[in-house]
Each structure stands twice: as structure tokens, then as C-alpha cells.
């Protein structure tokens, strides 16, 4: 194998620490069985952040409305379980599809315009969905939310129990699967074109990359994955409410991604772990002030410099 080929493939290869991390993660529901519920939450949030990483970290699109797809997935899965069939995996697929369709439609809106325009449009999409969910309360339960979503057993065998272990395994499994796919995706030629679009859209066009088409594809994929995360939430908690569409969710997931570092896939995972643990710790002391501390953290983060925080590999000039 030539040196060039080796260098290119190096970043696509799994490192030992990655195997270790995932083995630990998968074992967590047994090793830390009393914390299965929070493990489940972390996995769901990590998946949500991963989906945002595809568009924010790899393609450079600032989206303030990513919760729209999360919510779409949540309600699709919940309604599907209630009205059609309670199988979790089929419901997950349905949610994936529904969110993908929504993402494809929305992708038409983010292709043109400046950063501000895109911000507005993504924000608007999130708010529209919230309004719609609110208005169609005969279907969605409105402000009360959709209750009583009872899931059937996973793979026909594993019941969702109160301890949350099945839920945690389910979410972790989905997260791992998506992660593996995403890893291939970002190290492929397509993934490289996304980074090119992020770095210099003009030049990307000038080397023959169909920018709009690639943006539409990645946005749709990210929407589908966000929808999957939302579906997991609805399925594992048995409940879907309007707060899945709230601006707070979009802002939080962006913060999570930024904490862990956008553009390297693990950012979402690490950010999710840090964020959830911090939230747990701080909420038990001062629940109302969580928003304040998050705000302060964001302000300090930007003033100090996003890149200088928790991204040690960038200290050595790796791509």
C-alpha cells in the first residue's frame, strides 16, 4: 500500500480506544444498572447531537431548528405505536422515514441565502411544527401531550421494563449502528465534499461538486437521524409532549455538540455525557438556575474560544 493510500485510510480506521469506548458503553446497562435511565437519556441525546454534527460540524450549516425533526420523529413513533402497531423497530423506521421526508422538504429552504437567512428559516420551521402540533390537538394531545404510548417487546422478546435496561440497550444499540454508518459516511468521498462545502463553497462549486444536491442529501439524512432520536425518546418514555419542539432543545443540542467539539462525530457523544451529568448534578442543587449557568457557560465558551477547549487533537494539526 502506498504512503498516500495509507494516510488517507488511516483516518477511516478504528483506533483501539474507540473499541474500548463502545464496549464500555454497551456494557454500561449491566455495569451501572441502577443508572439505566440516565444512560438511556444520554444515548438519545448523543444520537440527536450526532445528527446535528453532520450538518453543523461537517457541512457548516448553523441550524436553530433541529428540534423540528426530533419532534417529528417523537410524534410519528408515538402515534404509530398508538394507532397502528406497538412494535418498536417498525415504529423507529416509520419515524425515520417521516423525518426524512420533512427534512427533504425543508432542505429546499436552506440552500440559498446567508447565515442569517438559514438561521431564520430553520428556526421558523421548528416554530411552525410546534404550532401545528399545538393546533392539531385532536391528534397530538396538544399541550397535554400524547400519553399512554405502550410499546411491544423489542425484537419480540425483550419487554420494556421499569428498570430501563431494555430501553438503554435499545438506544445504545441504535446509537452504535448509526455511529458506524456515520463514520463510513464522513470518511467517504461524499463526506470529503461536505467538508469542502463547509470550508469553501465557491471552490467546491468550481471543482464540480453539485453543492445543492449534496446539501439536500446530508440535511435529509441528518433530519432522519434526529427523528430516530426523537422516536427513541417517545418509545422509551411512553410519552410525547410539545417540548420536543421547543427552542430550548435546539439550543441545548447545539451546545452539547459544541462542548464535545463539532466535526469529529465523537463530539456529540462526549458532549452528551458531559451535559447530562452536569445537568443532573446542577439540577439537584438549583433547578431554576440551570438556564443561567448554561447561558454563562456559553458566553465564557465563546469568549475563551471554542477551539481551545476540549479538542486536544487539534493541538497537533490533524485534519
Amino acid at each position: 500500500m502506498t504512503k498516500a493510500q495509507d494516510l488517507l485510510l488511516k483516518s477511516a480506521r478504528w483506533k483501539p480506544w474507540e473499541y474500548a469506548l463502545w464496549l464500555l458503553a454497551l456494557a454500561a446497562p449491566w455495569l451501572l444498572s441502577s443508572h439505566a435511565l440516565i444512560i438511556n437519556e444520554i444515548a438519545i441525546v448523543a444520537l440527536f447531537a450526532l445528527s446535528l454534527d453532520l450538518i453543523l460540524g461537517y457541512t457548516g450549516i448553523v441550524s436553530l431548528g433541529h428540534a423540528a425533526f426530533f419532534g417529528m420523529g417523537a410524534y410519528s413513533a408515538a402515534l404509530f405505536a398508538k394507532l397502528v402497531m406497538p412494535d418498536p423497530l417498525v415504529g423507529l423506521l416509520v419515524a425515520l422515514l417521516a423525518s426524512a421526508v420533512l427534512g427533504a422538504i425543508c432542505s429546499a429552504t436552506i440552500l440559498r441565502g446567508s447565515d442569517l437567512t438559514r438561521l431564520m428559516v430553520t428556526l421558523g420551521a421548528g416554530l411552525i411544527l410546534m404550532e401545528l402540533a399545538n393546533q392539531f390537538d385532536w391528534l397530538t394531545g396538544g399541550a397535554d401531550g400524547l400519553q399512554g404510548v405502550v410499546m411491544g417487546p423489542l425484537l419480540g422478546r425483550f419487554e420494556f421494563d421499569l428498570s430501563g435496561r431494555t430501553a438503554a440497550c435499545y438506544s445504545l444499540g441504535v446509537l452504535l449502528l448509526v455511529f458506524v454508518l456515520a463514520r463510513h459516511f464522513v470518511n467517504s468521498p461524499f463526506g470529503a465534499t461536505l467538508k469542502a462545502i463547509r470550508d469553501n463553497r465557491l471552490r467546491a462549486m468550481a471543482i464540480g461538486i453539485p453543492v445543492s444536491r449534496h446539501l439536500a442529501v446530508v440535511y435529509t439524512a441528518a433530519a432522519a437521524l434526529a427523528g430516530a432520536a426523537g422516536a427513541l425518546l417517545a418509545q422509551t418514555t411512553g410519552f410525547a409532549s410539545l417540548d420536543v419542539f421547543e427552542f430550548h432543545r435546539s439550543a441545548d443540542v447545539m451546545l452539547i455538540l459544541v462542548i464535545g467539539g463539532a466535526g469529529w462525530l465523537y463530539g456529540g457523544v462526549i458532549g452528551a455525557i458531559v451535559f447530562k451529568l452536569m445537568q443532573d448534578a446542577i439540577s439537584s442543587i438549583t433547578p431554576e438556575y440551570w438556564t443561567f449557568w448554561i447561558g454563562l457557560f456559553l458566553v465564557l465558551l465563546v469568549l475563551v474560544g471554542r477551539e481551545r477547549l476540549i479538542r486536544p487533537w487539534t493541538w497537533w494539526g490533524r485534519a
Partner: protein
Amino acid sequence: MLTILFDGIAYGMLLFILAVGLAVTMGLMNFINLAHGAFAMAGGYITVLLMQKMGVPFLLCLPLAFLGPALLGAVLERTLYRPLYHKPHLDQVLFSIGLTFMAVASADYFIGSSQQLVQLPEWLKGRTEFGEGNWMLGMGHYRLFIIALCAALTLALQYVLTKTRFGSRLRAAVDDQRVAAGLGINVNAVFLGTFAVGSGLAGLGGALGAEVLGLDPSFPLKYMIYFLIVVAVGGTSSITGPLLAALLLGIADVAGKYYIPKLGGFIVYSLMIGILVWRPQGLFVRRGGK
């Protein structure tokens, strides 16, 4: 119907005063400041607290609702915002969301989360009506006051922009910052002044709007999108653009909520998305402008 038009215009003028500072600072510093609504909220709370705790009359509160946020804006611009002008937009978004969160949480902690009620002076309550039936024009006196005040402010702003030296320095700095600095214009001072005035106007808008829009700690987040719509649709290269956009938005929102209450807010957001997809640079940008 005419009443709806009237209410829509009042709402639109209010939105304009609230958002004009954001439009100008965005055009000037190219800084996406999502915390603009926090200054509006500050003005609203200053008014409410002065009236409730110290019995200050409403009209006197208004200039204070301008000055307080203006001062706050000046301090923040100099200390926090200035180092961030050249950072990528994502950083600016994160920063201003952070500030907003801090403001919202502080308001919640110190003042409480309930809606604040403003006791309008007697001469502002009441309503005058002309005509009848569908063509009746019902003008609430407070809304009339809002329209009058905002119109006066708009004219004043336009005068400052076009007829004063500060205005021409501001317009030069908006067009090309480097060249303006090269001509000896103190760009930092222009930024500071503009940001302060913009925040002050937001504060004034917040005070005026407390009765119409409501005032509680979630105000900045709730109305942020409206301000951004005014800026995105109206463009940042003039103040007539945002004015027209604000009027359009105000009338559309009031009319939408009246005629199709089920989908009121939905209409505004869809309209915005439609406009931005069709004309990403905004509806009212002059040819060759930003």
C-alpha cells in the same frame, strides 16, 4: 376590518421600534445578536418596577426605559461584544443565546415568572370609534399613542441618518468599514453609539409593548423570531426596509390571528419562510446593496 388594519399598524410600528436597533447593528457589525430581546425586556421591567415600586408616572418611565438599556448596551458592547465581531456566526449565535439565557434566568429569579401588568394612565385608556359594521374603525387610545410616538421616532431616526454627520458616518461605516476607518471615521465610536441607541430603542419598545405584547421572563425568546423576521425580510441596508417589513408582519399577524385563529402564528412563519426562499437577501434591499 379597518380596526384590524389599525391594530396591525400599531403592532407593526411597535415591532419596528423594537427591531430597528437590531437591523442597524446587524448591517453595521455583521453580528447576529439574538440577545436583542433581552434589552427590550429590560426596558419593560424598568418601567413596570418604577411604576409599581416607586409610583413613577408612565410617561416619565419611557425615557428611563430608553436610557437604562442604552447604558447597558454601551457597557456590554465595549466589554463583551467588541472582541467577537470577527468571529464566525455560530460563535455569535451561541454567545447571544447564552446572554439571553442569563437574562431570562435572572429575570425569573429576581422578579418572578408571572406576567407583569402595566397600569396605563387614564388618558391612555379608552377607545374612539368611527363608522359602523364592517367598516368600523375602532382606535384604542393607547395604540394611537404608540403609532404617534413610533412614527415620530421613525422620522427622527430618518433625519439623523440622512441629515446629520453621525448619520453619514454611520452609513459610511455600514457600507465599508475599512474605508470608513481610513477616512478618519472613528468606527469604534460609531459602533458604540449605534449599539447603545439600538438597545435603548428596544428598551423603549419593551416598555411600550408591555401592555400589548405582555411581559414575562420568556419575552426575549418568544419575540426573538419576530425581530429576526423584520431584519431578515426588511434587510439591513436601510431603515425603510425594516419599517415596511415590520408593518407587513404586524398586519399579517393580527389579521391572521383574527380571521384564522387556529393557524395564526403558522401564517407568519410560513410567510417568512416563503419570502426568504424567494428572496434570500430580504424583500427590500436596494439594488447593489448588502
